[in-house]
């Protein structure tokens, strides 16, 4: 036990260790509260329990909202929705983009390459939020469309990274060595190129997670993703906006939860990038 602790301490003192630790601790707390409070708490997220606009008190630490619902329960019940949607919105494009990028990195056909290249550049030319807002016009608003949109647009960023990386990796000596050893093409791509490319795209995915959380809640804030009865940080903030002058707790607590999650992730990202660079 003691040896383990010493090892942990050593790990913590390496560059970025403290950031990763704090970030994971903050994120873990958030997820834990997101599981405990909606499931084992005294109230339900859409239960009417008391006077509207009841200020924060010991019984209701985050107060009650305009319909007399418990803000704390609602705030924490959206942890699963927000982080879940963001997780899907990062992992699907990550998988698609990495695969497409590797294929493009190995492709030889000039027409395919220039077509795919301009498609990727074209998608990347627009800010994610703008492209998402525009595409919601013809997919119809809702959380499911948001995930679909993220899947069909966000892959381009991953594809760009993984393509560049695949080109670099495929020129390395160990790939030459594998070819000389007579390994099959499939084995080289799956066992030698893919792991080296995906380490790069996964690192980007972590920082993209923050962006996607902000985009998802931003779309909900605009009334384009999560619909009103559903508890979601962005839409809670949008609902509370009308009552900001009298009841600040409707906006501040969901916002703080959102910040907390995003900041915890950014600590992890920063920690990992500092560890990689060794400073």
């Amino acid at each position: 036990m003691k040896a383990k602790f010493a090892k942990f301490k050593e790990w913590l003192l390496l560059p970025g260790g403290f950031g990763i630790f704090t970030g994971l601790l903050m994120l873990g707390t958030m997820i834990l509260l997101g599981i405990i409070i909606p499931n084992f708490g005294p109230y339900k997220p859409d239960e009417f329990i008391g006077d509207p606009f009841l200020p924060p008190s010991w019984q209701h630490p985050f107060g009650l909202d305009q319909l007399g619902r418990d803000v704390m329960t609602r705030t924490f019940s959206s942890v699963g929705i927000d982080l879940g949607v963001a997780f899907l919105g990062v992992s699907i494009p990550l998988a698609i983009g990495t695969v497409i990028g590797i294929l493009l990195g190995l492709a030889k056909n000039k027409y395919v390459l220039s077509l795919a290249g301009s498609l990727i550049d074209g998608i990347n030319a627009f800010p994610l939020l703008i492209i998402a807002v525009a595409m919601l016009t013809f997919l119809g608003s809702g959380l499911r469309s948001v995930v679909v949109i993220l899947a069909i647009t966000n892959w381009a960023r991953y594809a760009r990274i993984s393509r560049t990386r695949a080109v670099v990796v495929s020129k390395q000596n160990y790939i030459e060595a594998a070819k000389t050893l007579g390994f099959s093409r499939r084995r080289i791509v799956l066992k030698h190129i893919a792991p080296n490319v995906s380490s790069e795209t996964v690192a980007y995915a972590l920082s993209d997670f923050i962006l996607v959380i902000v985009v998802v809640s931003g779309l909900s804030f605009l009334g384009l993703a999560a619909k009103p009865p559903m508890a979601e940080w962005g839409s809670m903030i949008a609902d509370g906006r009308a009552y900001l002058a009298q009841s600040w707790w409707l906006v501040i607590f969901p916002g703080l939860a959102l910040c907390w999650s995003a900041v915890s992730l950014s600590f992890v990202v920063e920690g990992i990038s500092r560890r990689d660079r060794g400073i």
Partner: protein
Amino acid sequence: MVISFAIMRIIPGDPASARLGGVEEEAIAELRKQLNLDGSIVQQFSRYVIDLLHGNLGTSLQTGRTVIDIIGSTLPLTIYLILFSTFFAVILSIPIGTSIAWSGKAPIVYTFRGITAVILATPNFFIAMVGILIFTVRVNWSPVFGYEPEFPQNLKYLWLPVVVNTLIMTSVVSRVIFSSVVETKEEEFVETGIIRGVGRRRFFWFYILKPSMAPTVVLLSYMMGTMLGATVILETIFTLPGIGREMVNAVLTSDYPVVQGILLIFGVITVFLSFIGDVIAYLLDRRVKI
């Protein structure tokens, strides 16, 4: 070289917006046959391109105004918003970034990185809400809703969105300046400059700042594009009649031609900005490859 670059960069941007247009019209054709949107996608696409070349972006389904007219009346406000915040962000970031990088003291650097990380991870609508809560609800410095287009009055409505935007941009830009100054510090010509005894002012401007500015300019041009996305939310919060709010309204009322037109303009602006950014970066630091 520059010209070939310009062609390379501008071409991918436009088919992309056109492509989105094509998909969008396909959806309309399914939903609204009465809008005279029949024929194959190729036909629609060619018609769209021909209309575009004639400067015709269609008319709004909601109000009947032409899309060009809507863009013309809403775009300037958004551009002012972005330009003002970029200007202030640059003015603030240069001293913050360089002085922190130059001092290099660990506690200062950690505080700087921590604060900027928190600001960057916070969604702009939450920062805006806190701003409204402080400056409108607690002290009545800024009106909540509305806008007056005349010059002296409009500052009353614009200053808070600009401050929010500036805050976010400053934290991005000062971070980049910080890290590129840290890199520049290690360069040999900086040491040479110190040994040669270059005057303090000249040393700062030409040896430290100029080489460090190239990545900053590239980032700025990219950030200004991203700011278009951010203003969509900011204009909705502050109810400013800019192009972002127009777009949200158009999406909420399913006004396809308006969304399509605004998207096209955004694409053109973003590509244009990144082109300008790359050219300026090249002029500042000839080692940058275009």
